[in-house]
């Protein structure tokens, strides 16, 4: 099914946080398939399609940099906010940043650039007039124009991504010539299953290209 697309994404920094190094963030070496899917979702997504990432080409050498930021330790309390909304009064709803400071260091990727090869498949929610060609056209148009629902990001929202569509007849930029075993990488999170388990796969980079297994592949550890 040749409803595949190729998208070049790049940015100044990227942080694809490893799940175990979530507090003092440490990025994976390359973009995760779930982050790539997130970029595609930002450009075009409807409940009737689901994006599946096929391969990732790494265009720039993998470099890291460490930055330190002052953040806070708590999240906005959803329950309290709801009850404040019902009450109609803001009393007690506050976050005093100075009492909740957490200094966290992040090790981020410097000037990452990737080509995402992906395709989409129709889901059960596809209606009668939904077909692949239509969605592909919409995506190509939006990507060429630079249209998106929200700015795509490289891992975390503060690292914005720029994107550019690579048409089927255009030549692909050259990937780096490194080959490495990247260890177990996050494939995606199974939001449908109970407890939202994370799914992992063994990522191998060959000449700068990482092949991502399809969703029903046995390579994905679940």
């Amino acid at each position, binding site marked *: 099914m040749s409803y595949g697309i190729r998208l070049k994404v790049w940015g100044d920094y990227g942080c694809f946080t490893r*799940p175990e190094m979530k507090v003092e963030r440490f990025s994976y070496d390359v973009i995760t398939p779930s982050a790539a899917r997130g970029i595609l979702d930002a450009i075009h997504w409807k409940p009737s399609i689901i994006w599946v990432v096929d391969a990732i080409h790494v265009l720039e050498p993998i470099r890291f940099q*460490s930055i330190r930021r002052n953040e806070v*330790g*708590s999240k906005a309390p959803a329950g309290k906010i709801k009850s404040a909304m019902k009450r109609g009064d803001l009393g007690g709803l506050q976050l005093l940043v100075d009492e909740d400071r957490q200094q966290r*260091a992040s090790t981020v990727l410097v000037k990452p650039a990737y080509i995402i090869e992906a395709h989409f498949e129709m889901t059960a929610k596809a209606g009668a007039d939904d077909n692949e060609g239509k969605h592909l056209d919409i995506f190509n148009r939006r990507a060429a124009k630079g249209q998106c629902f929200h700015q795509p990001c490289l891992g975390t929202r503060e690292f914005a991504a720029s994107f550019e569509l690579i048409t089927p007849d255009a030549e692909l930029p050259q990937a780096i010539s490194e080959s490495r075993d990247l260890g177990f990488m996050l494939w995606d999170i199974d939001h449908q299953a109970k407890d939202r388990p994370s799914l992992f796969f063994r990522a191998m980079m060959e000449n700068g290209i990482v092949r991502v297994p399809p969703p029903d592949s046995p390579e994905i550890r679940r």
Partner: protein
Amino acid sequence: MSILASLVRAYDRLPDAPPFGFSSEKIGFLISLNDDGTVAHVIDLRDGEGKKKQPRMVLVPQPVKRTAGISPNTFWDKTSYVLGVTAGEGKRTAEEHAAFIKYHLELLEGTGDAGLLVFRRFLSQWTSEQFQLLALPEEMKDQNIIFALESERLNRIMLHDRPAAKTIWANASGSAASATQICLVTGEQRPVARLHPSIKGVWGAQSSGAALVSFNLDAFTSYGHEQGDNAPVSEAAAFAYTTALNRFLEKGSKHRIQIGDASTVFWADAENIEDAEAAENLFSCFIDPQAEDAAATKKVGLQLERIRQGEHLDEVEPALEKGVDFYVLGLAPNAARLSIRFFFEGSFGSITRNYQQFVADMRLDPPPRDVYPPLWRYLRETAVLGKSENVPPNLAGEWMRAILSGTPYPLTLLSAVLMRIRADGDVNALRVGIMKAVLIRNFKREAPVALDPEDNNKGYLLGRLFAAYEETQRAALGSKINATIKDKFYGSASAQPRKVFAMLESGSANHLSKIRKQSTGRYVNLDRLITGIMEKMNPADDPFPASFSAEEQVLFGLGYYHQRNEFFKKTTETTEAAQ
């Protein structure tokens, strides 16, 4: 491979790794028990003399992670749990002691083992007053205590070494089985660790241990997961990586080095142990030669010399070039957490090449007093008052990463050194070396190693000129001046030459005329030097700019250093010639 995966692999290769469920802890005292449960002897397990008594590392069942609650360890703990006494006030010593007794009486319910029954009797009849009655030593308070049967003590069998005790411990630690998930380190379906064991030994972190993987606050959790579910790591993998890391961080292990605020551990992965140890020895000599002085054999010293001269590792020691994977991990403390400053994995050959690049960048003639100083000495040059704790925080980690991977140096290095020079006026070999290295690698400029009379870069020439003016002043007025032109004008001459050099030129004219009347030969040499430098300047090319960029300030410092050391060289040569 990821950090945790490579640590788990290192654990598998540790020669004497603690088995699952055990860890090495600092134990102070041993209490041996008679068969009826009374105390037979109290033995001090600490090494050393007087105030410097260090508790011994003993393999004991893994301690529970305690933060604010009361939870006893199995078969050992500190005195407030075990005996109910502490040195200080101890607000809840009684509860802690009661918890210890209760936990063990439940644990040992129905056991038939003789040794464990002795322990039960001890627990049932011990009261904290007995501490005074038996006149047990005061320094025992707040130490960790282990137990042994008097009959087995001389065979060095502790209570927790008994087979029955081991079985009970294995069952107890295994019973808290959580739901299995895919472990992100091994990729297999295993029970997931809720809390990871603590890492001890990182400089600056809490003494009770810090966590590499932790999710103790709301902002750190995602998707409603709690604690360890945020990052599923199996119990076995969590035990393996923390044990390996703790072993590497131990005092006196040949795997750790302190660089700035980053405790750095390094380990090699090779087919045979000798290659791995050789690589680790060499690496620690790259970073800090003095640390390995006692252990450095002639062979390592020779290899090091050849490597520093630029020989390819293939020729020096071919076994280390391929087939040795090397890992370096820099950990810095952040409250109760550990932050990873850098992680490098690659072949030992690539590390050696990057080290050689670093040495070549730093090379200066004349070299600093010890030709290849350790990294911390360089870092001290960037700190206020030269104190290690004032080194800018991220700098050590970023610099180490740049050295190991051959990437450009952090520019903070350059700005820190320039600021220090402006503050205390000390242009020494270490600082000039750092600046030169940054210039070569980051700005891709060529910079001379020794004095280069042909170089006509503006910054370099003005630096040499400044050194010449300083020497002229010294020759005219003697060495006992309170403030030379360097003390007063170095900062402004290097940053804004146009303001300053006119004044310096007229001052030097006066100095030169004085020298001419005292010693014509000296005058001729100095005058020739100054004209030689000025000859290289091109009037059309703005030889005295209004301000210098950072790169040109570096070349100014370099020129100053080279020229000034020329004068010292000359004086030693003339004294030698005179002799």
